[in-house]
């Protein structure tokens, strides 16, 4: 009775305490004789009862025969599954065998928690006579199930065979038959198709180069700072500036040649110049401003004009870049000063007679041609000066100096002190 109370109290938690006192229960097996089996859905329980019945009969015969059956137990290894399940079993002296089997039986009834090893162990006990029984096991279970549940009291099954667990987990069917479920281990080799054949190759070899390039690319991306972006933009603009310097020099040279050719010898054909050049005058002026603006900005960049003292020193020492920037700026002012005249030439055909009075061409065009000539000379000279020192760029030097200089350990110590 004490066992019953124990069972009632902690059925689920104290199951493992039951087997050692199985003999006590054997004395009072009819205390709870006709407990209806609640696990009618349990497919494995009932066949076991049958098997246990068989085992009981065998025990009786064994008790009659004596300790022979130890040999049977050890010798019934036919299928590999049986051999696996029997591996943990160790041979014992034959005197203990009946008792041990009873214990196993109890343990089997109590420990039906879906453990595959236990299940196979029980199966071993039942199927030790023949191998065929073990192979037909699933079929038998299904067929005998309803009968067994109905004839529980009649067959006189021991109460400890009936399991009234609240929620017994169903034993997974696949556990008996499936292969051991271990996680597949990745092999260090990869099979690569080469010439219609798969050949093993090292995983690291295959992914090495691409990973490395990706890694390098990420490194480059991550190590880019705002200073690098600034320097890159500045260098890009310097390339544009270099192009503009040359283009402007060539364009102004072409422009002045065209002017002198159209104006004729000693500027004797100014009306011809006006007729021919009036279409080109304003676009040429606009293009001049565009190129001069770019060239001037580029030249100022070279000198780093915004740093006043440094720029003045450059001018005083007649540095080529300083002179060039001065020349470009002068050319820009001179060119802009001719905006009015350029527009006047542009309107030569369409404007009324008041804009171009007869005989006023020379007084208007002569300074304009001279200014254009001066601009050409300035631009050409500036281009020559810049081309002599193409590498000098004081702005880039100061941009490169935009580094966070962390003090060395010694300096750090002195600072903190």
């Amino acid at each position, binding site marked *: 009775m004490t066992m019953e109370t124990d069972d009632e109290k902690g059925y689920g938690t104290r199951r493992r305490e039951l087997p050692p006192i199985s003999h006590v229960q054997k004395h009072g097996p009819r205390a709870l004789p006709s407990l209806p089996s609640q696990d009618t859905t349990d497919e494995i329980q009932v066949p076991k009862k049958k098997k246990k019945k068989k085992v009981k009969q065998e025990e009786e015969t064994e008790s009659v025969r004596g300790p022979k059956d130890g040999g049977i137990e050890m010798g019934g290894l036919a299928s590999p599954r049986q051999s696996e399940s029997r591996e943990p079993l160790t041979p014992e002296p034959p005197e203990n065998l009946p008792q041990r089997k009873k214990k196993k039986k109890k343990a089997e009834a109590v420990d039906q928690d879906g453990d595959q090893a236990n299940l196979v162990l029980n199966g071993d006990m039942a199927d030790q006579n023949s191998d065929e029984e073990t192979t037909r096991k699933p079929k038998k279970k299904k067929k005998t199930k309803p009968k067994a549940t109905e004839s529980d009291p009649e067959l006189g099954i021991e109460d400890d065979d009936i399991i009234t667990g609240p929620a017994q987990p169903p034993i997974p069917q696949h556990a008996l038959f499936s292969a051991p479920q271990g996680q597949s281990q990745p092999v260090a080799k990869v099979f690569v198709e080469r010439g219609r054949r798969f050949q093993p190759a090292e995983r690291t070899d295959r992914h090495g180069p691409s990973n490395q390039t990706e890694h390098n690319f990420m490194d480059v991306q991550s190590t880019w700072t705002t200073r690098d*972006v*600034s320097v890159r933009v500045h260098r890009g603009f310097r390339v544009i500036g270099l192009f503009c310097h040359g283009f402007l020099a060539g364009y102004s040279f072409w422009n002045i040649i065209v002017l002198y050719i159209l104006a004729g010898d000693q500027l004797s054909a100014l009306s011809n110049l006006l007729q021919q050049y009036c279409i080109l005058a304003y676009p040429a002026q606009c293009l001049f*401003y565009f190129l001069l603006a770019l060239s001037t*900005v580029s030249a100022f960049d070279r000198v780093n004009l915004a740093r006043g003292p440094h720029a003045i020193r450059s001018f005083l020492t007649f540095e080529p870049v300083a002179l060039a920037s001065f020349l470009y700026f002068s050319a*820009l002012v001179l060119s802009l000063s001719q905006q009015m005249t350029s527009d006047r030439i542009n309107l030569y055909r369409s*404007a009324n007679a008041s804009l171009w009075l007869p005989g006023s061409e020379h007084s208007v065009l002569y300074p304009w041609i001279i200014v254009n000539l001066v601009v050409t000379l300035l631009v050409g000279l500036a281009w020559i000066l810049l081309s002599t020192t193409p590498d000098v760029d004081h702005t880039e030097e100061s*941009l490169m100096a935009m580094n966070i200089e962390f003090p060395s350990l010694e300096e750090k110590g002195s600072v903190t002190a």
Partner: protein
Amino acid sequence: MLQTNNYSLVLLIQLSLLAFDLFVNSFSELLRAAPVIQLVLFIIQDIAVLFNVIIILLMMFNTYVFQVGLLSLLLERFRALLVLSAVYLTLSICLHCWIMNLRWMESNRFVWTDGLQVLFVFQRIAAVLYYYLYKRSTEYLGDPRLYEECPWLRDAFARARL
């Protein structure tokens, strides 16, 4: 800390606005056949200058130097740009108003006077200086020292306290 991507994007926007400004300054005289087109171009140009000034001010406010209160350090570096931007914007608006006023009724006529010529020259020269200073300032605002504490900033702070 200023992110490189953000800085690149802002730099691209600024340089694009500058390029548009240069284009309008250079070739707007050729597009004067329809006064409306010129008017729209001038309006966009002035707004672009304003945008550029706002962007560079926001970049300055974003610096660690500004946030710790070393405004004088920033002004020392970028004062010329701020002054010239204001001058250039003023000159541009004045010139645009004047030219549009003269050419609105008849676009293809001779409108130049000495005053307009002088204003034109000053506006264009200011534009070139503005381009130079603005480009330089945007590049200098990529200085990592402006965005975190460093010995250079500590020295500047010490000098500012003296």
